[in-house]
């Protein structure tokens, strides 16, 4: 009798109509936002492909000729309009532009970053500086360079100053966030012992966030190298980017672009490897 009862209840459990589905995934705000973001992005992408300005382009043919170009570029690179040493020198010019930009940007950004950190100044100053920096960041670098080129003429001065704007805004954001991570107790303890603002900055804030500052600055240097190439091409800033622009637009020499790309690729990968090694070393020393 008892065994029979148990059997029916087991049957009831297995009966699909009686079975209640257990909800594993609950609909939280975050999952709704994730799903709607993905759906909106997908819809916009599909719409974008319909709205593109194709200009009677045969996509298949263009893709095939791009493959042929890439093959010629990477397998048969040559330098015709300038020598190997000239190209190497221009690479160093580009590195120099990136270095100067990063240095100027870092010096300005440390001061602005200190003022933008909420725990070091008051909230109003911080909001004003952060808003100002967000505005600078919204203008693309190339526009900054071109705007400065009107006053300073095309060349390294306009390029460095224009690129510095973007570096400052990027680094202020990164620096102020790492300053804000500092423990509130440290500042309070120093204030209680009678230290002034500059003493707090130089003996507590900067030493404790130094590793972050260095790794952010190096990352910006990597970015600035790429930006300097682009500015050489788009805004006549000189360096390897300008040679690349000449090879592309005036000599129409795909093989020369290939040779220059190899130069750029080698430096970029070297910088990336240096950054990874650098970070590991900093981590070991920091802990």
């Amino acid at each position, binding site marked *: 009798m008892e065994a029979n009862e148990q059997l029916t209840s087991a049957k009831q459990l297995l009966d699909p109509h009686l079975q209640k589905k257990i909800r594993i995934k609950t609909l939280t705000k*975050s999952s709704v936002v994730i799903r709607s973001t993905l759906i909106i992005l997908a819809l916009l992408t599909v719409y974008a492909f319909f709205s593109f300005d194709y200009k009677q382009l045969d996509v298949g043919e263009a*893709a095939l000729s791009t493959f042929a170009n890439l093959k010629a570029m990477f397998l048969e690179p040559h330098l015709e309009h300038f020598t190997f040493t000239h190209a190497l020198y221009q690479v160093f010019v580009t590195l120099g532009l990136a270095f100067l930009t990063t240095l100027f940007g870092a010096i300005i950004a440390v001061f602005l970053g200190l003022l933008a950190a909420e725990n070091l100044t008051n909230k109003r100053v911080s909001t004003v500086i952060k808003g100002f920096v967000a505005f600078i960041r919204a203008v693309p670098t*190339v*526009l900054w360079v*071109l705007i400065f080129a009107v006053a300073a003429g095309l060349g390294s001065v306009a390029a460095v100053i224009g690129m510095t704007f973007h570096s400052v805004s990027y680094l202020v954001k990164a620096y102020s966030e790492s300053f804000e991570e500092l423990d509130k107790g440290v500042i309070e303890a120093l204030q209680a012992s009678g230290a002034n603002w500059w003493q707090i900055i130089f003996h507590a804030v900067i030493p404790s966030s130094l590793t972050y500052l260095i790794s952010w600055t190096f990352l910006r240097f990597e970015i600035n190298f*790429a930006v300097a190439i682009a500015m050489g*091409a788009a805004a006549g800033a000189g360096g390897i980017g300008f040679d690349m*622009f000449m090879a592309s637009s005036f000599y129409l020499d795909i093989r020369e672009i290939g040779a220059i790309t190899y130069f*750029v690729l080698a430096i970029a990968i070297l910088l990336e490897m240096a950054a990874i090694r650098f970070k590991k070393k900093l981590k070991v020393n920091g802990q």
Partner: protein
Amino acid sequence: MQADYFFKKKRNTLSFLSILGAVTILAIIITEYNVIKGFSSLPKAVEWGLMNFYPTQESLTKLPAILDKLIETLLVSIAATTTGAVVALLFAILGSNTTRVNAFFGSISRGIATIFRNIDVAAWAMILLFSFGQSSLTGYFALFFGSFGFLTRAFVETIDEVSGGSVEALQATGAGYFSIIFQSVIPSSLPQMISWILFMIETNIRSATLIGLLTGSGIGFTFNLYYKSLNYDVASLVVVVIIAAILFIESVSNYVRRAVL
């Protein structure tokens, strides 16, 4: 001992600063950077900007045409980012140390991503210009390649960070490769990935302006047209429109980020 420590610290700082100074002087010489001109051009640029670089009443008549180009540029950036992200996800799963099939495919997929990432979008634009001409597709593919390379690196780091333990746990229960990927790896790293995708869209809109300048399409070309013809009032209107668009996208993505992370 104490004095020694401070002496060492001072010596290290001093040698670091002198190396930095030497490299700076070298960089100034090699780039032919004029320091005095650098400082003096700053107030000159501000003065010029206040005199000439603001939109006027008559430049507003060009607004519809500018907005049209802006929307085209935004769509190109979004399409390039999302399609790049799909391919990057595939490569990241193959390249991540926790989810790769084997070490060989892992290093191949990461190597491909490294090459694509380190060729700048401006370089891609110039290469693609040969066969795609002045169509939207030049910008699209340039941004697609750049996004693919960057997002692969970001996704690999996300996967490694988020799902190391859960993959091991699921493997111990005997779950298959695909069920581990789709039930654990992707759902747990999705919020981080969306944050990266939004960041990439912001970056791509800025790069799209640059590509437009180089290839003659989109909002960058519009700016260049008015800039080169000295119509600074219309050019400044283009800048204002770009700023508005980027700040709008930034605030949307900040909202999404706060909701998902």
